[in-house]
């Protein structure tokens, strides 16, 4: 529907423009009645209106345009020549057309009024007359009296040559005989015909209209005076691009001014700059809007493509388009056309089965292909969904092995998701036979590259036998993007925020310990994950000049993470992307350039380009992970800890892994609504927890800016409001539990030479909102009793708390030996154990449990700080059912519920 409206809008805009021009052209025509060019132009305009009106089913409009066109065609062919009367009539027709267009714009429907029908009759009669004149070959100039009586006409026709007399006499006769009844006769017949034609809605409403319009009716010969007001203006795309550029410049100047204002610290200047800032942002948004186009502009090309493809492949396809009015930047619309076409081809060629096969597997013979677009979190999501055969992961693996992309042993290790990602490797094509449709050498790797070039990403979900969904996520605009500014060799570079995962300081000794050198390459251990390290200075051939220790920017290419070592990290900024000249086209590591607040230029780095240039491969990372796996065990209990202040005197810590996001907000974003303090954040309201309300600590001082630690659980979000983030460090947690025995505090430790309180995030959130966490016990009406063996008090409390808040009854043990004793005495539904423990470790404990006939069926879940394939294998050998990472609360709870329902469903 929305799409039709869009076309109608276009039609109206175009018609209005053309009609304005028609006015001028008709006046010109009177002066130059023989100008063929002019006549043709007028004819074309009317013809277009007629055609479009017919397309939309606007009968009255179509009829008026039709008769006007009739008259014009006679003029154009030189059968009659223009006179004042004809011009009058045609101008009247234009006025009626304008009136109808105006009504269309207002209501979307043709106006229902007798005057249009009356005029239509007049016009029709007039057109007939003109036609007769043309037939009679009369000199139009002499006979300007077409509407005069038949007598006059016959008088005029006396001058006609004998040869023509026949024809004209016939015409006369007709004229004469109809002269009297004409008005009633023809007009009533016409009226009927037109009324019939203009559809049922007219019939419905025609009764009350004559009365309403009676005053107008008296002025029958008069024309409805309508001036079409311009609501749409056509603007050169170049002008829009220039406006966009200027808006970009304005953003930069604004950034600079804001910087200066914050330095000078003058309240008046500050206010002025803030005002400017707001207006600039709004202006930028509005200008961006002018470049927005509905994605339907691309989508509407597909019904035809799909139809042709379906025919040539002998398949039956029903294409459904959803969200065609979703808007995005026109440059992006252009750029996604080819990738989308390729994906649709793939879906029909590889995805959908032929009708026979479909019927055999119990599907309707007609396959469904859905093309869907919608907005999500500042991005546009485009989905191509088919209900075909799905992608067979094993086939993909086999193909990849055959093509030499991976080895059989690597294939075995791949998860389904990783295997699906093989499709995007260059040189991969699953089509068993190369068809003329999709097997033409342009593979999914090209699609992926193109999508990534736009700053987007691509994701495939497939269910074997029931279909595949390809999902593209694309930014709304390319022109202005948030970016992180880093330096290397005293030069600044911008990194698009979309690729950014996290930042790690490399200044501390502990952080540097995580760098592993394997051969020529460097790798970094990030919370148990191994990622390759790339030194920006090395790539660029610059001399690294770190100020105080280097920093690591963890980036994601879509396929993998890697760490980029830079000299320092500045800030994140909105930047305006400007293209680089042709001299740099072959350097893939730059995505463009931008002008900084100080007027200097900085290059924008292309994350994917860098990873390509360095030749990063997922396999290398796997290899290193295996090699480094042995060394990893020793560092097991090392955790990333976030240090922060509420009041400046007291330092607090929580594991970084628990935090969903960190952010800064200004004080004016805080609101007190309905007894709750909330903050507006990314267009949503998030409840705020002030820690001093729940803990015996110093209150948060008033500040202009606060830091937010955001936590999520499913759809739920909540944030701690704190004054300052001190640091994030990696350390082994030695917790002292004796000093603070307060709910919400796990214990204390000395970090960075300060006594630091470790907070129990789960407990605090539960104190704030007991319903925040979703209860996740597998079955209602039964309490599951868990035994948790964990030597670290920090983890023991934390895990016990989140298990309890999920609805379990939790008993704890400080090591394997104690757990064993408890297992002897009491009945438990599940054992959850750490691996590294004094006296009796997790693996030994599991073996002992399995060896005991009474406990042989007890479900066992192991929790560790890291999980490598090797560890998992050992665990499974020892009899452990599930293997999870301690701080991944969601996964632990899901896996636990799963494990319990599996075990106890079997038993029941």
């Amino acid at each position, binding site marked *: 529907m929305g799409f039709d409206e869009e076309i109608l809008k276009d039609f109206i805009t175009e018609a209005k423009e053309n009609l304005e021009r028609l006015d001028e052209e008709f006046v010109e025509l009177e002066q130059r009645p023989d100008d063929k060019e002019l006549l043709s132009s007028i004819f074309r305009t009317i013809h277009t209106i007629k055609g479009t009106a017919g397309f939309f089913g606007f009968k009255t409009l179509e009829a008026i345009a039709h008769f006007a066109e009739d008259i014009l065609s006679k003029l154009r062919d030189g059968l009659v020549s223009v006179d004042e009367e004809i011009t009058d009539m045609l101008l009247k027709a234009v006025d009626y057309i304008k009136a109808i267009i105006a009504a269309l714009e207002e209501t979307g429907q043709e106006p229902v009024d007798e005057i249009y029908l009356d005029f239509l009759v007049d016009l029709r009669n007039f057109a007939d007359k003109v036609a007769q004149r043309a037939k009679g070959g009369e000199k139009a100039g002499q006979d300007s009296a077409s509407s005069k009586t038949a007598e006059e006409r016959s008088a005029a026709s006396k001058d006609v040559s004998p040869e023509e007399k026949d024809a004209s006499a016939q015409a006369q006769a007709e004229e004469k005989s109809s002269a009297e009844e004409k008005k009633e006769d023809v007009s009533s017949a016409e009226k009927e015909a037109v009324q019939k034609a203009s559809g049922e809605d007219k019939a419905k409403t025609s009764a009350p209209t004559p009365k309403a319009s009676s005053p107008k009716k008296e002025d029958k010969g008069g024309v409805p005076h309508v001036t079409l007001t311009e609501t749409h203006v056509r603007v050169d795309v170049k002008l829009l691009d220039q406006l966009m550029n*200027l808006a970009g410049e304005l953003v930069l100047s604004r950034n600079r001014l804001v910087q200066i204002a914050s330095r000078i610290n003058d309240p008046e200047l500050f206010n002025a700059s803030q005002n400017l800032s707001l207006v600039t942002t709004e202006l930028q948004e509005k200008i961006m809007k002018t470049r927005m186009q509905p994605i339907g502009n691309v989508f509407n090309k597909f019904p035809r493509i799909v139809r042709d493809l379906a025919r040539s492949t002998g398949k039956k396809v029903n294409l459904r388009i959803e969200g065609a009015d979703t808007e995005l930047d026109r440059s992006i619309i252009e750029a996604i056309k080819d990738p989308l076409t390729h994906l649709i081809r793939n879906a029909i060629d590889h995805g959908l089965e032929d009708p026979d096969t479909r019927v055999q597997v119990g599907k309707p013979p007609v396959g469904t292909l859905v093309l869907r677009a919608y907005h999500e979190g500042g991005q546009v999501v485009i989905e191509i969904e088919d209900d075909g055969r799905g992608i067979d992961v094993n086939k993909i693996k086999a193909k990849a092995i055959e093509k030499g992309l991976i080895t059989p042993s690597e294939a075995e290790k791949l998860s389904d998701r990783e295997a699906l990602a093989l499709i995007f490797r260059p040189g991969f094509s699953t089509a068993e036979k190369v068809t003329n449709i999709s097997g033409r050498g342009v593979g999914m790797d090209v699609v992926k590259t193109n999508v990534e070039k736009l700053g987007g990403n691509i994701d495939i979900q497939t269910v074997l036998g029931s279909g595949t969904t390809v999902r593209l996520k694309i930014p709304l605009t390319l022109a202005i993007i948030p970016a992180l500014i880093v330096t290397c060799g005293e030069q600044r570079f911008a990194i698009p925020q979309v690729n950014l995962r996290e930042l790690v300081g490399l200044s501390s000794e502990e952080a540097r310990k995580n760098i592993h050198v394997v051969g020529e390459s460097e790798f970094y251990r990030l919370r148990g994950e191994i990622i390759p390290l790339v030194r920006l200075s090395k790539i660029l051939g610059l001399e690294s000049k770190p100020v105080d220790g280097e920093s690591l920017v963890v980036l994601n290419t879509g396929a993998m993470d890697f760490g980029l070592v830079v000299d320092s990290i500045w800030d994140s900024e909105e930047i305006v992307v400007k293209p680089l000249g042709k001299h*740099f086209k072959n350097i893939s590591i730059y995505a463009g350039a931008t002008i900084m607040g100080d007027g200097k230029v900085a290059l924008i780095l292309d994350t994917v380009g860098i990873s390509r240039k360095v030749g990063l491969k997922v396999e290398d990372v796997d290899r290193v992970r295996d090699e480094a796996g042995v060394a990893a065990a020793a560092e097991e209990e090392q955790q990333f800890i976030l240090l922060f202040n509420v009041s400046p005197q007291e330092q607090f810590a929580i594991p970084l892994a628990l935090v969903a996001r960190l952010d800064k907000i200004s004080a004016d974003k805080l609101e007190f609504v309905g007894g709750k303090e909330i903050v507006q954040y990314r267009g949503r309201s998030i409840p705020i927890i002030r820690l001093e309300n729940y803990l015996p600590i110093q209150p948060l001082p008033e500040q202009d800016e606060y830091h937010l630690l955001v936590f999520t659980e499913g759809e739920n979000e909540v944030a701690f409001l704190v004054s300052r983030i001190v640091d994030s460090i990696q350390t082994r947690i030695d917790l002292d539990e004796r000093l603070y025995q307060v709910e919400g505090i796990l214990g204390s430790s000395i970090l960075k030479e300060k006594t630091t309180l470790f907070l129990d995030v789960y407990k605090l959130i539960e104190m704030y909102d007991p319903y925040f966490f979703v209860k996740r016990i597998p079955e209602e009406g039964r309490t599951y009793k868990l035994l948790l063996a964990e030597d670290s008090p920090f983890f023991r409390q934390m895990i016990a708390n989140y298990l309890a808040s999920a609805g379990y009854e939790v008993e704890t043990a400080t090591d394997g030996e104690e757990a064993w004793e408890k297992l002897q005495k009491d009945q438990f539904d599940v054992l959850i154990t750490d691996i590294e423990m004094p006296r009796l470790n997790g693996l030994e404990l599991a073996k002992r449990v399995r060896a005991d006939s009474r406990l042989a069926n007890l479900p066992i879940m192991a929790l560790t700080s890291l999980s490598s394939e090797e560890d998992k294998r050992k665990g499974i050998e020892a009899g452990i059912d599930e293997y999870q990472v301690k701080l991944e609360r969601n996964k632990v709870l899901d896996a636990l519920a799963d494990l319990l329902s599996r075990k106890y469903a079997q038993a029941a």
Partner: protein
Amino acid sequence: MTVPAKTEDKVLALNEETKLFITFWLGGFLFAIPVEEVVEINRSLDITPVPLSTKFVAGIINLRGQIITAIDLATHIGLEKHSQAHHNVIIGRDGEPISLLVEQIGDVLEIPVSEIEEPPDVIEGLDTKFVKNVCQLPENLLVILDAKLLLNN
């Protein structure tokens, strides 16, 4: 720096066809580019080097919001010796402009078409590929560069 001879003006016959040239100094040579090829002349602009780029590319500059490529002209045309070039001669009226880095801007010269000659095969200390014409001035040889070739290469 010697100003190209003023006497030229006097020599000009009234009706003789002439061409206007922007002149500049680089590596001891006096170069010229037809006025109509030149967008503007700018003093020292901040150049941001672009690592990994071709040798003759000096970097990118911000020309009132437009990013343009700065060409190290001396390296590009194979000048053997030259000193720091800070001035920008920006060429390319249609399409993508580039900035040529030069040592010093000279005068605008009006030169009779009849005095513009084909370049010799060899000019000492210079790659003649980019030389379109020459013109013998009283004190110097004026080397007229091929702006189109510079823009497209």
